[in-house]
């Protein structure tokens, strides 16, 4: 799947995987986030065959040119989850919008684990 946009010179299509990689990279850079993980067993099995790298644990959907991002993360124990999630949402939204030039509608953060 790709997200399509255009400028004066022609069309630009950005693959979901490119956006997922950017989102995953930025999310891992966020303070308090230890890792991103596949959301279920199926995703995890797929990961065995396709090296996902930074795209792991990030799901993307889009309606028209608006992007919806879901992040499945493991947080560090002892940090304020609400504060980290808030800054995670902010930084992912900012970076993806900056990278793609399209609007990120929603960033959902799913805390699936805590690393002690």
């Amino acid at each position, binding site marked *: 799947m790709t997200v399509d946009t255009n400028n004066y010179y022609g069309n630009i299509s950005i693959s979901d995987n490119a956006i997922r990689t950017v989102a995953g990279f*930025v999310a*891992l*850079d*966020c*303070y*308090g986030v*230890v*890792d991103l*993980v*596949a*959301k*279920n*067993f199926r*995703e*995890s099995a797929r*990961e065995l065959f396709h090296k996902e790298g930074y795209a792991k644990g990030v799901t993307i959907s889009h309606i028209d040119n608006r992007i919806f991002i879901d992040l*499945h993360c*493991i947080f*560090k124990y*002892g*940090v*304020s989850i609400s*504060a*980290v999630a*808030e*800054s995670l949402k*902010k*930084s992912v939204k*900012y*970076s993806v919008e900056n990278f793609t030039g399209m609007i990120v509608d929603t960033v959902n953060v799913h805390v*699936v*684990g805590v*690393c002690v």
Partner: protein
Amino acid sequence: MQKSISGATFKKMVLAGVSLLEQNKEYIDSLNVFPVPDGDTGTNMFLTMKSAVGEINKCMNTDLSSLSEAFAKGALRGARGNSGVITSQIFKGFCSVTKNCKEISTKDFAKAMQEGAAIAYKAVTKRSSLSFA
């Protein structure tokens, strides 16, 4: 010369620190740092510290152990933004050294600050071995 830090001194230090941070928060905001350049680093840090001070003011005990624990708890609860979360982690580490101490020596203070930095760095450890949740 100051040889030890008691609960009362710690409280004074914290209050002075917060008021100094309040005076300089615009300057820290202007640093406009990572990850989103929206310039609220100083404000976030100040709000975190303000919440921590609120917790210290509520604390009935005057020994260093209870005060630092209240301070760390207040910082954790009121953490805002990346800078606030990092500040709260520094005080969490600080608190782990001052636990059960009525007062600490200057050497212990240095050790507590080092522990604070170490705990703050621990949250940057990346990539666990878990493959799915």
